[in-house]
């Protein structure tokens, strides 16, 4: 039951509202006017259906203005706005229907232009429902917000994809798309519509991603495999001429002056520039191995990469990619050591371009160096390239590079005013002042230079002994060059070898002038040559006579000295005159010795031959005899008997397919290689080890190493010893248990 008080309150409220709406007009005229105004206003604001009401009479703006004034005075504007938005909500199904139509059309055709039309259509709706701007900001923003909210809510999930396609279509075309080029230029007006609908803000990241993808596609297309020219400047130019105008639409709309536009584009522009660098960097990183192979043709690509790496921090990626590529493509048993070395040298050169301090190089080189250390022929390859291999033209060493002494890492000089700290990504072992010279780097693969010098001696010995014309100027020149690198002292031995060669010639000239002889020996100082395989072959017949008479002349010339021959080395130019033919050939002395023996009798067994010469193993005997069989001078009969063919065999047997021996196919390796020398040494040490283990029972590897160090010539490290012991274990000589080695008791 309402009390009087309540009743009074309601009456007061009523009066109040009435007064407000009636605005103090007489009677209810105020109310009437208000109702009129409401109708005009809502009629004006009503969201029309574009599809059905194509034309509409021009609204009478002054009447509408008055109507809104009335409403405003009655503080009815919020109400009318609410009702307008409510109306919009009711009409929204129209837009939804259109959106769906366009979207399904796009689904079918995948033509971004459909989406362009959709966007334009939406703008038409937007404009059609747009309240007059005179109505104030509040209404406008409320309207825009509400419209956009609705549009976004009805856009299907497939819209972002479609929108992306549309944005992409506005970009300048790539070369690969040329064939399907559109006749019409991309419709740039859609950008205005995007702006109106708030799509730019909403899909900002999507637009950026479109641009990123565009840049990526362009970079990959333009730069892949093109290493001979610098790409980065070209790319930046392309960016400036093609992409920036597009960016003006997307990012600098509303800019009034070029300066303003520039300012607006700055942030996004540098992002895209970064992306160019990053994409190029990724591309080059993935290609790095081949780029290095192509060096120096790929110099420009490397310069690009260096510039990109300064902008983009991808050094770690570069290192890991290159390391992986090296492991996969280079450091496997199928690769030639020489190739590995060549590639290593290229890597050194290339990475020095990319990263002068050498941090990258240090990281990449480590596995290669470790691998090369394990290869047995690495030193030989390096040495061969040092002295300039005759057969292969490309030397590891750049001819133009100044010859300089080998450098060794020095202790850092902190007092140096130009001292710089190590680069930030340098590893703990990194040394700034690593030797920069290629040869120094190669030599530093190994801890000691002695190995190189030894190998050099072997190589030099092989070459010198093989020279027939006494022309070894090339070797002399090489030694002079290497002296600069390795130092005078290390190559002293080589110097002696060269001197032996000249001395031999002088002596030979003298001896020949005293008593002419067909024998022209190279007389060597044995302690200065690598160990030569020793034999005690006794030369037969005239060969021995020659040797003896020459040796006698020599002793006359140099009374204090005498000669001892190394009969298995050298070459003999020999004529074998038979009844019906003469065979003229060049053979090793050993083969000459064999045929010489056939002067005594025509039929020999191999055992007799070997016994006669002494110090020949059967294999080399067979090989020597094989030469003469191939030449048709001897004939092999059963039980390793050989018969001299005074007259050539009938064609029937001559027709049998025996492979003609290549004249001097491979020079037998006269000089004991470094490996063989080492093995020989180790045999000596094995005696020590055996003695130790016999006397002391079981010993640890450390103990053995310590004790072996007492031996004067022992220079192995513990790893080498370990490998040796392991080999001994495999042969069943020793056993190991808990790191203790002991002799295997038989």
């Amino acid at each position: 039951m309402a009390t009087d008080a309540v009743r009074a309150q309601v009456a007061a409220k009523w009066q109040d509202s009435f007064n407000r709406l009636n605005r103090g007009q007489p009677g209810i005229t105020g109310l009437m006017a208000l109702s009129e105004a409401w109708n005009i206003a809502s009629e004006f604001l009503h969201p029309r259906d574009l599809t059905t009401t194509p034309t509409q009479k021009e609204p009478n703006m002054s009447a509408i203005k008055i109507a809104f004034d009335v409403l405003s005075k009655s503080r009815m504007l919020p109400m009318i706005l609410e009702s307008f938005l409510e109306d919009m909500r009711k009409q929204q199904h129209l837009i939804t229907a259109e959106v769906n139509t366009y979207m399904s059309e796009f689904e079918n055709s995948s033509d971004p232009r459909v989406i362009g039309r959709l966007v334009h259509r939406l703008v038409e709706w937007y404009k059609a429902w747009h309240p007059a701007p005179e109505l104030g900001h509040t209404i406008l923003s409320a309207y825009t917000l509400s419209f956009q909210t609705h549009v976004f809510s009805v856009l299907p999930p497939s819209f972002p994809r479609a929108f992306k396609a549309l944005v992409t279509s506005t970009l300048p075309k790539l070369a690969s798309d040329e064939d399907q080029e559109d006749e019409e230029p991309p419709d740039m007006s859609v950008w205005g519509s995007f702006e109106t609908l708030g799509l730019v803000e909403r899909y900002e990241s999507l637009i950026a991603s479109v641009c990123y993808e565009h840049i990526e596609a362009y970079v990959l297309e333009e730069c892949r495999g093109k290493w001979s020219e610098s790409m980065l400047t070209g790319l930046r130019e392309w960016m400036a001429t093609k992409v920036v105008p597009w960016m003006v639409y997307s990012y600098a709309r509303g800019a009034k002056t070029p300066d303003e536009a520039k300012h607006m584009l700055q942030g996004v522009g540098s992002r895209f520039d970064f992306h160019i660098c990053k994409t190029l960097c990724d591309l080059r990183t993935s290609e790095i191995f081949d780029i290095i192979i192509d060096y120096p043709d790929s110099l420009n690509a490397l310069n690009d990469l260096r510039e990109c790496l300064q902008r983009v921090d991808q050094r770690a990626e570069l290192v890991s990619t290159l390391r992986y590529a090296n492991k996969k493509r280079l450091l496997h048993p199928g690769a030639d050591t020489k190739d590995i070395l060549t590639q290593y040298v290229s890597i050194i050169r290339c990475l020095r371009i990319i990263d002068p301090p050498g941090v990258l190089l240090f990281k990449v080189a480590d596995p290669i160096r470790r691998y090369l250390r394990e290869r047995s022929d690495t030193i030989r390859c390096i040495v061969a390239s040092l002295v300039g291999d005759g057969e292969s033209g490309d030397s590891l060493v750049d001819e133009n590079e100044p010859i300089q002494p080998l450098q060794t890492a020095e202790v850092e000089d902190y007092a140096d005013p130009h001292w710089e700290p190590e680069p930030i990504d340098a590893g703990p072992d990194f040394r700034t002042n690593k030797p920069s010279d290629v040869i120094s780097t190669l030599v530093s693969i190994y801890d000691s230079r002695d190995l190189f010098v030894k190998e050099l001696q072997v190589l030099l010995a092989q070459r010198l002994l093989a020279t027939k014309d006494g022309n070894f100027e090339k070797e002399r020149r090489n030694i002079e060059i290497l002296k600069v690198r390795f130092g005078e002292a290390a190559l002293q031995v080589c110097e002696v070898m060269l001197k032996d060669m000249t001395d031999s010639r002088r002596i030979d000239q003298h001896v020949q002038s005293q008593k002419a002889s067909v024998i022209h020996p190279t007389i060597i100082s044995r302690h200065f040559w690598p160990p030569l395989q020793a034999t005690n072959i006794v030369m037969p017949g005239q060969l021995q006579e020659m040797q003896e008479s020459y040796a006698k002349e020599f002793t006359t010339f140099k009374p204090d000295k005498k000669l001892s021959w190394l009969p298995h080395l050298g070459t003999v130019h020999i004529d074998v005159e038979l009844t019906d033919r003469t065979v003229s050939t060049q053979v090793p002395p050993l083969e000459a010795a064999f045929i010489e023996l056939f002067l005594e009798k025509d039929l020999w067994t191999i055992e007799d031959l070997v016994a006669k010469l002494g110090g020949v193993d059967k294999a080399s005997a067979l090989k020597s005899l094989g030469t003469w069989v191939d030449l048709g001078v001897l004939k092999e009969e059963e039980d390793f008997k050989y018969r001299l063919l005074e007259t050539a065999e009938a064609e029937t047997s001559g027709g049998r397919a025996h492979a003609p021996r290549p004249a001097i196919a491979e020079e037998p390796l006269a000089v004991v290689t470094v490996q063989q020398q080492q093995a020989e040494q180790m045999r000596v040490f094995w005696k020590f080890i055996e003695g130790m283990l016999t006397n002391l029972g079981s010993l640890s590897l450390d103990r053995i190493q310590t004790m072996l160090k007492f031996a004067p010539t022992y220079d192995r490290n513990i790893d080498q010893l370990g490998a040796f012991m392991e080999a001994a274990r495999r042969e069943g000589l020793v056993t190991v248990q808990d790191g203790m080695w002991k002799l295997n008791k038989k």
Partner: protein
Amino acid sequence: MKITIRHWHAIAQWRWDIGGTSDHDDADAEDDVCGICRVPYEGCCPACKMPGDDCPLIWGECSHVFHMHCLLKWLGTAASKQQCPMDRRPWVTAERKIAQPVAPAALPSTAPS
């Protein structure tokens, strides 16, 4: 059959004719070293770089052989008292003659070990 050698490029080693050793025991003579510097005779003394005629040997009457430079250096020191470092007999340089190989047995007890 007739065999003609046109040209023979041979390889030989030289060694000092120390006397007392003949060709057949070459292998034993392999490691003869100078008693002073312990470098093989065919090597060179520590002061030299070139072996052979540049660093010759010197023979003593006492049958001992050294690198000439080594011995002269030794004799130049006061402690040497002009004695052979091996047997402390006064050092007398032996006359080396080409004829020596003719009578290697003339010095039967002096062959270096």
